[in-house]
């Protein structure tokens, strides 16, 4: 082997490994950030939908509890909004009628996140008997 070829080879291999590692790190970071961002957005969307769905499952109980605490429209709106916060939701009572032990409510349920704001309109008619 010619003099100086061996050190040159060692240097070349070291350069390949060092620069290669830089590419490796850059690619990892780039793809990882992009994929995690997309998963995060997707998760946020699913979580927002789930929050609304969990709220809906307990809607009858929530309407009953909100009404029976004060038995007037203002306290109903306030109570329902407070219960909504437990689910991470903003609740706007669009209309509410209390008549002969029956409640008719129209609600706008808003789930807000960093990437999404999901709104759902819910109508509920139910009979209520306060204990």
């Amino acid at each position, binding site marked *: 082997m010619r003099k100086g070829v061996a050190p040159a080879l060692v240097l*070349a291999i070291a*350069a*390949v*490994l*060092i*620069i*290669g*590692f*830089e*590419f*490796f*790190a*850059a*690619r*990892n970071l780039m*793809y*990882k950030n992009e*994929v*995690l961002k997309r*998963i995060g957005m997707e*998760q946020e969307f*699913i979580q927002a939908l*789930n929050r609304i*769905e*969990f709220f809906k*499952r*307990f809607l*009858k*109980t*929530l309407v009953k*509890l909100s009404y*029976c*605490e004060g038995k007037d429209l203002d306290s109903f709106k306030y*109570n329902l909004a*407070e*219960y909504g916060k*437990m*689910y991470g939701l903003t609740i706007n009572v669009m209309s509410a009628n209390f008549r002969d032990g029956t409640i008719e409510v129209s609600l706008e349920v808003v789930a807000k996140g960093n990437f999404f704001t999901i709104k759902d309109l819910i109508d509920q008619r139910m009979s209520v008997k306060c204990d």
Partner: protein
Amino acid sequence: MKGGAWFVLAFVAVAFVSFAVGMFVSIPFLRYNLVSHIVTQIEMNKAEMALLTLLSLRENGRDYAELLAEKAMKNETMDLDEVFYEMGIECFRLYVKETNNVIDETTCNDKEETYAAMSTIPLPNKKHLTLVLEVRL
């Protein structure tokens, strides 16, 4: 070739090989980092779906959401083995976080990872309990 040309050729060769090495070596690392993360998220979503499905069921004209809320408040248990079995879940633990009251559970012998989903049970005076479902999917 003159010295300058050799130098440029060597530089390009080193850069190309480095690029190739870096790109190919990173694939298994990316897979390891990301796939496990994605799988966890998917399994957690499945657990949430299982809890939502459970709360959507009805028995004798009553919602399971109401029934479970009642059981949670009274620290009672409820037999849910068959319900979960129909959903395709064999191992689960349904409990109330605040009181640690286990409504029902079926344990498995193996130690595979379990995933949890939570829901808020509203109580009078704006208090609440948290219903937790741990499932092994």
